[in-house]
């Protein structure tokens, strides 16, 4: 594979997540956007047999891409050539039974304990906050998949000390809180990916821990875009840049019009180093 020299940071995000997807594990992915593209990219390059399901009970589809806008579920292309078609409770039951290893989700905000907000920015009480769609299937994914991968942007407002509203559970208030609230043991947050960094969690404290950064940023740049100081792993790895082969698939098969990856900054290789690019957009 050939390292790319000009790419969108969100393309990099999708590539980074696709590389941690394991063929032997089962996945529940949010209905569209980056989570879906990550697993479809993995299927095409790294884990051809990996299976995923979506919230409407589509089990192991071979989706026909691209989709029409907003046709994330209950559309024939999304559920094409699945092994089984069910309903939302089919998906919920499989997760509750322990059949689903990893959930991949987008989030508006994530905090120190990996809690997820998709309900409101600002105050919920009084109705003056900015409202969003609610947890959808994320509450079930975050509660019952053995591991949860979150995808979001590296921005201070997206990493508050405490999310404005816990729509879906991370570690809640810390060790033991999930079990005390009736969630199955051994489940919970595993990774947070942004275009700039990869985080895990410190086992004992359940706190977010910086593990790796992208080749075009420094640790200080990542920390400057967080409202709290995370734990820092003893060794900070550097994530590989996207490969040309990965970008080819994203651009010609998945996000063909750049609707998802087009936002955010672009990166280029200049004088042997990855830096933010002067030219934005696909060439």
């Amino acid at each position, binding site marked *: 594979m050939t390292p790319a020299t000009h790419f969108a940071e969100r393309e990099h995000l999708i590539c980074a997540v696709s590389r941690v997807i394991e063929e032997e594990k089962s996945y529940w992915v949010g209905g569209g956007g980056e989570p879906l593209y990550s697993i479809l990219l993995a299927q095409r390059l790294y884990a051809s047999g990996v299976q995923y399901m979506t*919230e*409407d*009970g*589509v089990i192991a589809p071979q989706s*026909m891409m691209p989709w*029409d*806008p*907003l*046709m994330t*579920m*209950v*559309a*024939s*292309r999304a*559920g*094409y*050539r699945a092994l089984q*078609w*069910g*309903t*939302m*409770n089919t*998906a*919920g039951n499989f997760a*509750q039974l322990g059949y689903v290893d990893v959930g991949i989700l987008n989030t508006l905000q994530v905090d120190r304990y990996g809690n997820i907000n998709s*309900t409101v920015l600002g105050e*919920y009480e009084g*109705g*003056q*906050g*900015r*409202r*969003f*769609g*609610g*947890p*959808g*299937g*994320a*509450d*079930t994914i975050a*509660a*019952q998949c053995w591991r949860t991968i979150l995808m979001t942007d590296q921005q201070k407002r997206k990493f508050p000390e405490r999310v404005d*509203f*816990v*729509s*879906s*559970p991370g570690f*809640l208030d810390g060790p033991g*809180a*999930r*079990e*005390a*609230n*009736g*969630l*199955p043991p051994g489940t919970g947050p595993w990774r947070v990916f942004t275009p700039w960094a990869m985080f895990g969690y410190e086992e004992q404290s359940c706190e977010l821990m910086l593990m790796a950064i992208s080749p075009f940023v420094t640790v200080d740049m990542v920390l400057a875009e967080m409202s709290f100081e995370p734990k820092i792993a003893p060794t900070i790895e550097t994530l590989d840049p996207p490969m040309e082969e990965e970008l080819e698939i994203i651009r010609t098969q998945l996000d063909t019009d750049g609707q998802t990856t087009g936002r955010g900054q672009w990166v280029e290789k200049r004088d042997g180093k990855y830096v933010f690019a002067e030219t934005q957009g696909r060439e």
Partner: protein
Amino acid sequence: MEILAEGQGAYLPPDPDGFRAWVRDNKPRTLVPKMLNEHEAIEKFVSDGDYVAYDCNYFQRGPSSLIREIIRQQKKDLWVCGKFTYVALALLVEGGCATRADIGFVGFGPWLSKAVAAGRLQTYEYSNVVMTYRLQAGAQGLPFIGVRSFGGTEGFPQSGAKLVTDPFSGKPVVLLPALNPDVSIIHVHQADVYGNARVFGTGISHVDCALASKKVIVSAEEIIETDEFRRDPARTSIPHFTVDAVVHAPFGAYPGTVQGRYASDVQHVVECFGGTMRGDLQPYLEKWVYSVDSHDEMLEKRVGWKKIQALQRRETIREGYSI
């Protein structure tokens, strides 16, 4: 059973005995023709103040024509089951029909913030699967259901859920109140005149919606002979005795898609979703709802058969949809 925590949100009180009595007194056991037009069905079976569930949504095999008819008839004070819905709730709120919603996932954007801030919409917080489990309990005739999710969220205090000590294991478990909507509206691929119905492909909770609801309106792309059901009974999704009205509604999910039948109208979807993002849906309602008398008239005057045929051609996938 010790209650460890409980939500303070209002919820439709479960009443399994009341539901059984309703079924005893209102649901015909024999094959009774139930064909109505959209106007008659909504007029007769959707009342002001009802708790309304619809399966899927305005863009994905939902009962879009009947949602528009509810708005046209100016129904009031509806409480909407907001599981996996993009814009239908927005349209019902803008149309002055809905004032309360249980939220799983709804179309986000400025319309929602505006409606909540202005007090036009009261929300109670759940999640999609939590709502479909509530419907499952309702469909089983049970008062509640235990789930291993939702606990510890900040939706929980805004809901009707309770965290209790499981009397069997001694561990904490979340209990959800069963949901038995006053009325469910379900768009299907095929039905007969008695209400036997087939949905092909995935759905959100169509069977549970039909079983859990006091009144059930089915709208169907196609009306088929009862003998067709007898020839292939495994494909019956919803049995006739749960259904109160059958509406023949070809392209009834428009502007949404029906799997295996027609694709969504992308231009229309963008126009409608754009209205929610701008926080202004009145022009949309005027054009697509108020200024036409019926679904047929909308198709004829606003859509046109040329476009309808193009949408049929664009839905190329046939496998699994009985064509």
